[in-house]
Each structure stands twice: as C-alpha cells, then as structure tokens.
C-alpha cells in the first residue's frame, strides 16, 4: 500500500426530514487499499456512497475524496473516480468497443490513449473477437468484468463498486476479485459493497454500518478477534442483529 489518504470522512451526516440516514460517520481510506463497506439493507450505505461520489450534499460534517471537498468540488470528484454497480453498468445496445469509446470519451480521454488502451484491454479480457458485438449478447460474467474495466479505463484514483458481483457465478466472481486485486496493486483505491461475506475477507479493511452509524472498522482478522467470531459472516450477523430500524 502506498502512502497517502484517498478518502477522509469526518462526522459526515445526512438527514432527510427527521430521518437520519447517515449519522456522524468518520473514517479514512488509504491509497491503494481495498475497503469493504458493509451493512444491512437500509443501514445507510447507498446514501453515504452517494455523498462520497459527489451526487448528494451532506447535511453536516466534512469529507474529501481524492483530495477534493464533497461540498464545493463535486465535479472534480466525479472526474477522479470510477463507478460501477450491478444495476447500472454498460449500454446493452452499444457494442463492446462503443461502450469503451463512450465512457472514455465522457472522461475526456484523447483518441490516441483510447485506441491504444482499448486494444490492450480487449486482449487482457480475451474479448477481441467480441469487440463488435452488442453488450446485450455477452454472458453476465463477461459483462461485469467488462464494466469494471470500463469503470477504471480513465485511470481514476478511486473506484466505487456497489455490489459488483451480485448474481454472478462462483468462478467468475473469483476472476472478478482477481481484477480488483490487480487494480489495487496498480494504485487504484477500491471502495466496495457486497452481500457475499466471503468477499469481505478479501478486503484489507472492512467497515460495518448499522442504523446509519459505523459500528466496526478493522481488518477482517482483527474484527473476527474482537467479536469472537469464526468468520466475517458471524461478525456481520452479530452486529446487524442490533439494528432497530426497518430495512430499506
């Protein structure tokens, strides 16, 4: 892990009317770290992530992402991050190549850069022969791997992954995590949510949100020690059972 902080969050809070979705959370994410962001449905993960991506203004507290302020520099944040979720990833009725071209273009990358890197990427994913095919025709696993590659194509400092492996088969799920490791090794900070508890074990550190607050934050090994649990699944169950507010 290289030095420096990719994300710093201090007393961040978001209220909707009298409902406090995110309640005074504080944490730092180190550059190049794989940071797992866990919590039950309705714990406030999505709201917190939206604030960090510059899509929602906090009610109070401070946060900086890639060195930019979440109140005043949201456009700079958006340029410095990548984002991928299970629900929204690629345009189904564009080809593989067109999707890459589209996203890279949106981030203002020059033609030469796009051309060269597209070839390299298609090679790595072994998608050369599929380059002209509509994304719709790809198997889900390939789509998710392509979506991740597209999310980091513009070489962002941080990539946010919102349940990237939902519904993906167990072999592809592991290939996907291999790609995450590679991205982190190249210096990209990875901020990831998941419902698969084995994937929590692959993170350098994991935070667990309950009712809008961060109830635990540590390495998987340390969390298991602290909560006297055999697995991250047990840690999660012990913490999430305390939740009083209804799931989203």
């Amino acid at each position, binding site marked *: 892990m290289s030095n420096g902080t990719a994300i710093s969050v201090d007393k961040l809070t978001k209220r909707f009317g009298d409902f406090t979705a995110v309640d005074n959370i504080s944490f730092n994410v180190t550059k190049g770290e794989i940071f797992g962001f866990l919590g039950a449905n309705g714990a406030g993960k999505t709201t917190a992530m939206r604030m960090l991506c510059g899509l929602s203004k906090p009610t109070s507290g401070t946060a900086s992402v890639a060195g930019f302020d979440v109140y005043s520099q949201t456009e700079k944040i958006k340029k410095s991050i990548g984002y991928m979720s299970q629900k929204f990833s690629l345009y189904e009725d564009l080809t593989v190549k067109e999707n890459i071209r589209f996203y890279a273009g949106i981030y203002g990358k020059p033609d030469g850069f796009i051309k060269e890197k597209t070839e390299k990427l298609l090679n790595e994913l072994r998608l050369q022969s599929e380059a002209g095919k509509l994304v719709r025709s790809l198997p889900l696993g390939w789509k998710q791997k392509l979506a991740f590659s597209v999310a980091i194509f513009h070489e962002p400092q941080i990539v946010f992954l919102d349940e990237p492996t939902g*519904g993906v088969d167990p072999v592809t799920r*592991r290939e996907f995590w291999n790609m995450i490791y590679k991205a982190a090794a190249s210096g990209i900070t990875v901020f990831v949510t998941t419902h698969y508890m084995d994937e929590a074990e692959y993170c350098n550190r994991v935070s667990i949100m309950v009712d809008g607050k961060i109830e635990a934050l540590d390495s998987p090994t340390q969390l298991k020690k602290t909560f006297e649990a055999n697995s991250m699944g047990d840690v999660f*169950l012990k913490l999430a059972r305390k939740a009083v507010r209804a799931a989203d």
Partner: protein
Amino acid sequence: MNAVTVNNIIKSYGTKKAPVPALHGISFDVPKGELFGIIGPDGAGKTSLFRILTTLLLADSGSATVDGFDVVKNYKDIRNRVGYMPGRFSLYQDLTVAENMEFFATIFNTSIEENYDLVKEIYSQIEPFKDRRAGKLSGGMKQKLALSCALIHRPTVLFLDEPTTGVDAVSRKEFWEMLKRLKEQGITILVSTPYMDEASLCDRVALMQSGNVLSINTPTGITGEFGKPLLAIRASDMLRLLNYIKDYDEAEDCYPFGEYHHAVMKKEYNEEKLAQYLAKGNFNQLETKKIEPDIEDCFIQLMKN
C-alpha cells in the same frame, strides 16, 4: 406423489436465425411437501423454468406437470392452486397493504379471514402498516407483503423466484426460517437463489448453470459426490500463495474462498511432499487443514468439468 414433474423442457428466446437458448432439456421431479432449491447464477434459466411451471410461458418442447396438472392443457387448474412470487416486486404500488391482500384474496374467491392462520406469522409483521401504499414500503416489508399475497389462497405449491437476492445476511436468515415453517404446513416450495450457501437449507437442490442442470441431490449428497481431497490453506501473502499452489503438480485447482484458499488435490497426493513444497515457499503464518467441501466448491468443480 410428485408435486412437480419436469420432463426434457427446452426453451429458446431470440429468432430462428439467432436463437438464445435458455433451457437445454431439463428434467426433475419434486415430491409433495419438499423444499426444493434451484441454485444458480443469473442466466442459469431459473426464471424461465418458473414461468413455464406457473403457466406464464410456453416451452418449445418437453412436458411438465404441477400438482398432477399439465402446464399447457390444464393451465387454469394450475393457476388456481399455485402461489408465485416473481423476482421483481409485482404488487400494485398504489394500493395499500390491506388493499393488495384483499385484491389477491378476492381474485381467488377467498378472504383474508379464511386463510389468516396461514399468513398470520408473516402478515402480522406488516399489519401495523396496512394503510400504507405498497410502493412506500421498505424492501423487507415489500418482500413480506408479496409472500403474504402469494399465500392468501392457500396454494399447494409455492414458487419463489430469488426471494433473497440483494437482501442482507440477517434478513436472508429470517426469510429461510419463515420458509421452514411454511413447509411444516404441508406446502411444497420451489425456491431459486444465486446464493450457494442457501443450498444447505433445502431438502434437495438442483444446481443450474447456463440452461443445464449440473446435479440434483440432497445437499449432503452433492457434497458427498465431490470425491477429491480438499484443503484450506492460508498465509500472510495470499496472492503469492494462490499462484504458488496453482503451480504445484499434485494440486488440480486452487481458488480464493474467504479467508482461506481452497486447494483441490489429486486423489493420490502426498501430504508430506506438499508440506515440504509449501515450506520451500517461505510463507509467514502458513496454515493448512483438511476440510469437507461445501456446495460452492462442488459448483465450481461442476462448472469447470
């Protein structure tokens, strides 16, 4: 007697020129009263199969029966007696909780009162919100309402299409406890899920991938068929360890599995030789132990063969 029989069902989408196959000749039976799981990732064909069995979709060929009725000829009889909870929330968003329940009860010529004992445990949890519109409910409450509506006519067979997808570990656990109690009331339940760890909660499971059934058995039957030694290995440098084990000639496969790597070994592998090989790798905090495979290990092997 079988609650469900499926005989060589084939289904393709797309056009004749460019068919997109969904089911490649699937066959299985589900005896009455069983909790039967269909386990597989997206694109396995789970939803197509459920839609054929609930008479909402016609197969290209093959036959199937539900509760003794043919899915094509007797589709009306089937619709009267099955409950179906689709993967996507499909209730009326602008009716209230109580109105949705009344609507589904009336359609099936019954009333909430008549079958209240069956849905009581689930419905009582959302009853305090009975005047709230369904669209304004939380995800967990929507799920409970959908299940209540699917049960209100006391179905003999219940089809649940990915009821726990995107649901957190705690709510998933609660949902499965609910299913167990429904099963005790004599309802046959077919449930699909992409979560491998839920397989052990079923009486029997079919593992599906890309329109094919890879294996059908009890959960312990499936893990019993694994047939190769399996080791869990970890060390401080997991990435290097993974590649190091993959290079070993007596290891057939190695993949990350939570905090350990799982190494599938050749039947005749030598423990001491492996220990020497690992020691040569100079790993810190190295730990090796023999383990029993779980459903996910089996699924991975079945996919790769």
